[in-house]
């Protein structure tokens, strides 16, 4: 590492509407180095890498490669500069062969006629260099996830990349596949390639990287050589954020058990023998907020979706409402029992974006607030307007189109949809994702008020302060199982994070 850095990123700032995603981030990389980037979900890691990869051309600050300042106006620019990014979601075409994928869009050809022999020969040599044994003529869809990852890396390197970014490469890999990946990465390091490695798995990061940078809330917390860090220190740096005054801490009276889940297991729809949620049991009382913490892929969303009856492969286990065993086979069943789900992705599953605020609000409770079969707009307004006002939905009117509203306002519309139906049990999945701070505070207030009125609330969030600030109790999921439970007073960010990550740092 005596040489000059191949990459320097200085003062990188990126603003999305309403959110400052990155704020003066500094990051550098030397040839032959593995530099890990860690941080909580939403700390800005992926945004930083998307800037480096040319996905977001507009940003503040400077990117230097080999000492020369660069502006990337697209992915192609970054590729030409020697940057290759392997994103979390693999970008391979499953129906094409390995070779075709590696050379997609720049097949060796003469006069538009593809030279297949050359294509496969070159693909084979790229794969050999990586030290992996994959047939370049195999269809990508027929390979396991680990091998697909290798193809993705081969594809990245075929662009003569000298800077390789890997975003959560081991998230979907088995242990053996991960070991193989690390061996391949060591080989690349010897060839002088600089590798940026993003991962939640801190042990893995400590094992393979040379330096580690911690991001938090869009800012660089620290960059340090790996020898000077322990897992515990990393966790403290990742979560060490003062819990702000955003969270209402009212005293709520907790009532009887409203909702109980017993031995819930959710199979993976693609591979039924694999369980996304594995034997999870819990109960929520009236007026209680139960938070669920965990890393991405721990099965949190899958649990909520399944309990709402919307999981493609269904679930096993028992659900009790007010002590009564109930069957939940589809969302209509769940809704009939007074359960509501505020989904993670408003745009995909929460709102009909081209419809009005009012239409969206009344979609669930339509027959109650409008008419059994014949609808009546005046009655809908009568039911919806007070809620529109009390939730302070910041839309020009009830007839504004949902698409035109800000994230926080859209989220309130989704919430209104459930409130109009008098939901007694509400599931929140990432209730404040993509919402600016001011609107977040309002959502927190609403959740608190709902709990006060006796609604039982189950909330999944990747933002630790949010879980800690709002919940009466916290369940931690890890790889589909309950890894720990914390009462409000015992839950510290460090303890919850350690429990979610698992491994040596787990609190007793």
């Amino acid at each position: 590492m005596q040489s000059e850095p191949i990459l320097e990123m200085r003062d990188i700032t990126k603003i999305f509407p309403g959110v400052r995603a990155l704020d003066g981030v500094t990051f550098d990389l030397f040839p032959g180095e593995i530099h890990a980037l860690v941080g909580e979900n939403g700390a800005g890691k992926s945004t930083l890498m998307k800037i480096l990869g040319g996905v977001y051309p507009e940003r503040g600050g400077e990117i230097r490669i080999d000492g020369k300042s660069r502006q990337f106006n697209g992915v192609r620019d970054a590729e030409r500069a020697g940057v290759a990014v392997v994103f979390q979601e693999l970008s391979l075409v499953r129906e094409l062969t390995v070779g075709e994928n590696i050379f997609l869009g720049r097949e060796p050809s003469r006069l538009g006629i593809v030279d297949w022999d050359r294509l496969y020969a070159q693909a084979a040599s790229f794969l050999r260099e990586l030290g992996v044994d994959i047939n370049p003529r195999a269809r990508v869809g027929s390979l396991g996830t680990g091998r697909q990852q290798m193809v993705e890396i081969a594809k990245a390197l075929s662009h003569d990349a000298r800077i390789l970014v890997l975003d959560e490469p081991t998230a979907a890999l088995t242990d053996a596949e991960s070991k193989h990946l690390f061996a391949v990465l060591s080989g690349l390091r010897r060839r002088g390639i600089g590798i940026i490695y993003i991962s939640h798995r801190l042990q893995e990061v400590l094992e393979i990287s040379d330096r580690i940078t911690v991001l938090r809330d869009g800012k660089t917390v620290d960059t340090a050589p790996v020898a000077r860090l322990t897992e515990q220190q990393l966790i403290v740096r990742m979560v060490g954020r003062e819990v702000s005054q955003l969270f209402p801490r009212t005293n709520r009276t907790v009532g009887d058990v409203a909702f109980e889940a017993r031995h819930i297991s959710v199979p993976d729809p693609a591979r039924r023998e694999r369980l996304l949620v594995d034997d999870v049991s819990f109960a929520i009382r009236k007026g209680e907020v139960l938070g669920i913490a965990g890393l991405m892929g721990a099965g949190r969303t899958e649990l909520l979706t399944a309990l709402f009856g919307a999981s493609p492969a269904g679930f096993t286990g028992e659900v009790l409402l007010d002590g009564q065993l109930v069957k939940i086979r589809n969302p209509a069943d769940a809704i009939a029992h007074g359960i509501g789900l505020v989904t993670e992705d408003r745009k995909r599953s929460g709102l009909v974006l081209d419809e009005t605020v009012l239409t969206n609000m009344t979609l669930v409770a339509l027959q109650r607030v409008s008419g059994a079969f014949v609808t009546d707009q005046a009655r809908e307004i009568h039911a919806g307007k007070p809620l529109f006002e009390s939730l302070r939905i910041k839309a020009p009117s009830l007839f504004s189109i949902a698409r035109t509203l800000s994230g926080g306002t859209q989220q309130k519309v989704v919430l209104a949809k459930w409130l109009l139906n008098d939901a007694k049990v509400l599931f929140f999945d990432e209730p404040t994702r993509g919402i600016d701070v001011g609107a977040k505070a309002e959502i927190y207030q609403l959740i608190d008020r709902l709990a006060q009125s006796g609604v039982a609330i189950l909330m999944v969030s990747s933002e630790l302060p949010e879980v800690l600030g709002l919940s009466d109790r916290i369940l931690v999921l890890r790889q589909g199982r309950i890894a720990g439970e914390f009462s409000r007073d015992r839950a510290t960010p460090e303890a919850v994070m350690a429990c979610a990550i698992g491994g040596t740092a787990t609190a007793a």
Partner: protein
Amino acid sequence: MLSEEPPRPLDGASQCQRVIKVSNQAGAAQAGAPPQTALPVKKAPRKFLSVSAIRSYSLVAAIAIVWIAFAFATDGIFLEPRNFSNLMRQTAVTGILSVGMVMVIVAAEIDLSVGSLIGLSGMAAVMMQTVAHAGFLSSVLVGLGVGLAVGALQGYLTAYARIPSFIVTLGGLLAWRGAAQGISGGNTYPIESPSFMSLGQSYTSPAIGIVLMLAALAAIIWYVLRRRMVQRRLEIELWSPAGAIIRVAVPAVVVIGFVLMLNAYAGIPVPVLILAAIALAGAFLMSHTTFGRRLYAVGGNPEAAKYSGVNVRRQVLWAFCILGLLSGIAGCVYTARVGSAGPEAGTLLELDAIAACVIGGASLLGGRGTVWGSCLGALFMASLDNGMSLKDVPDFVQSIVKGGILVLAVGLDALARQRE
């Protein structure tokens, strides 16, 4: 609060009003947040006219322009009562189909089989008369039954067996045409029942036309007054007094003009009466019932509809059933208008119906489209047909013009949306 809670009232709003009062503390917390993160979020400016409103006005304007142009080109023949009556009769079959088609399109599906289904259901109805010597009622019921059964089958295959509707109904396009040829042995069968014939060829007497007109006017006034009353009672002023008057005046003028024009020739053609009834029922179903609301949600965002407890598959099945039934009705009307059932009856009508919906503002991506728009689209297409035929424009030119206008209309709309 919990202990004193009575059984929850059915009126969903009241509970929420009590529960959810966002206090101003939220604002205080906002003020306490780091200032740089609270960036202003762009708000969409309020539009005077919605896009869909501009769209339906422009379609009305386009029809007016076409009518005026043809009136000039034909020395006024185009707008004479006799031709107006013909034009309306020509619109009827496509119009009936497009009422059902728009429902399927709003659900983000498509049906390519309706032309063949017209042939099959019309053939089945007429063969009931010639082969089984059945009467009017049973032959009509057979025609409708065939349509409904086919619609239900195709809907089931689309919604529950998960075969794309394009494929299911492309198969239907071939299969039902084949079935029509098969049961008829390739022969054309004449209609025997005079009542059946009247479905396509009769007119109401002018007196009945006037009675129907008065009934329609009364219904319009009653409907507007009733909704005004509900609005008053709930203290929700959706319509200003002027707005209410416009809502009476515009349909009233259209109905009066329409009936007087038709009476000036021979009275209201029965197919037009059937279309009017179906369009009215269809428009009501789509914009004033829970069924319609959910259908728009299913087409607009099936995920969100599912998470809101809507049975997405059942909605799709129903849309296909309705279209099937309407195809059966259209089959009877079409056959009756022609006077006999031929094995090739109704060929390519599915494309006219789809074109009518699309010109009328429906999006093939689903979630958007109206019954009235589709009927206007059908009228627009029929106007082109009728006017060009009056001018003896060769068939091939007619096809080219219609095809070009369809693509142009959708292209202009796409352009307008991009600008938005």
